[in-house]
């Protein structure tokens, strides 16, 4: 990753934290100050989707042209995406505790998110249960692509077809994409970019660690 992107990520996230807690926000019933969760909860999902997409792209690249390089990248992007997804679930649970009254409310969006995390947990189980390295990389790449395809209806289609209490679904006092007022947009958009950049930064660091470890192993074997 380019250095200026890293600096940008740090600046944007500092701005998000300061702006997210201090800037004024619209007053809405029930939601009140918890609306600030938007700056930290929603970008997690954007980041997760971006990272999973990157992981899928590297899996496709692996199938077209097998190399240790693209397999490691697919693995680590999925790893970091999973971490962001867990953070997204936890921030959502904290928010739900104060507005819906309980951390897990069985809302279609919560369930969909939980299932999509199960998909990637299954991906790691699959990786763990194949010993041959080439076969592990190839089969897990196939599963990764297949799982991403199967996740699209789960995250993007089904929640939109069912009624939900989640903000952005109308009928409840909350933030819709359209009643995000301009003051919130000024923090929200930078927050999305900042968290996505941070996710990619973490992933690239992990990828580099793996490469170094692999090189050390090679040297030890010689």
């Amino acid at each position: 990753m380019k250095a200026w992107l890293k600096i940008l990520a740090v600046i944007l996230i500092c701005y998000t934290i300061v702006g997210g807690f201090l800037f004024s926000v619209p007053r809405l019933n029930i939601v009140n100050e918890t609306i600030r969760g938007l700056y930290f909860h929603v970008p997690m999902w954007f980041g997760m989707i971006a990272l999973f997409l990157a992981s899928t792209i590297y899996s496709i690249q692996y199938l077209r042209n097998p190399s240790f390089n693209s397999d490691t990248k697919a693995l680590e992007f999925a790893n970091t995406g999973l971490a962001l997804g867990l953070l997204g679930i936890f921030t959502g649970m904290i928010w739900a505790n104060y507005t819906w009254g309980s951390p897990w409310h069985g809302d279609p969006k919560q369930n969909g998110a939980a299932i999509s995390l199960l998909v990637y947990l299954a991906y790691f189980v699959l990786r763990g249960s194949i010993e041959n390295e080439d076969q592990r990389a190839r089969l897990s790449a196939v599963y990764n692509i297949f799982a991403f395809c199967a996740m699209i209806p789960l995250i993007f289609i089904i929640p939109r077809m069912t009624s939900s209490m989640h903000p952005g679904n109308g009928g409840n006092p909350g933030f819709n994409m359209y009643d995000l007022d301009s003051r919130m947009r000024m923090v929200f958009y930078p927050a999305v970019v900042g968290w996505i950049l941070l996710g990619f930064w973490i992933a690239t660091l992990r990828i580099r660690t793996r490469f170094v470890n692999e090189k050390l192993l090679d040297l030890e074997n010689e």
Partner: protein
Amino acid sequence: MFFTLLKKELTLELRRKSVISGLVLYLFSTAFICYLTFSLRQNQITPLVWSALFWITILFTVINTIAKSFIGEKRGRDIYYFSIASPETIILSKIIYNFLLTLILSFAGFGLFVLLLKNPIADLGLFCLAITLSAFGFSASLTLLSGIASKANNSNILMAVLSFPIVISILLITVKITKNCIDGLDRSISTNDLLTLFAINCLVTAASYLLFPYIWRN
């Protein structure tokens, strides 16, 4: 080639009757357990409980059915297939064959549930369509996963772990359609769900068709 492979699967299935009779027995046992647990309190089986029991039974039966499509194959036989047919034909014939098997088992399960429990379905035609579509979705997605699981260790556990998150979107929509069928709602209400189910089937089939050559090449 495609029809030859399909015919081979069917003949093989009819010859070793133990597998198919085992699956039917599995289905019967599950349905019978559902019946026994509620034996004298039939009135407590609300339509929603019925739908939950029915789909859980079908899901487990189907996973067990399709899991054997690659896991059960003898080692070395796949090398023979590899030399005579393209991977695309193999996956398509397996999907179609599994679809037929799943369809038969699903309708047998429905018959058993009607016989043992009761029949809460008001709109039978729509429900049959939902069963057919879900059977195709299950067979298209699970056949590929069975191929993946057969290459790994502890493949039976892996099969379940890999397939649950994938088939759950198909299952969620079918359960929703089932609810509409039970309530006897107008068919136009379910059209959207049926179309979504159909679209998911197309997506999953296309993905299986494209990805299978990579797990086959060894």
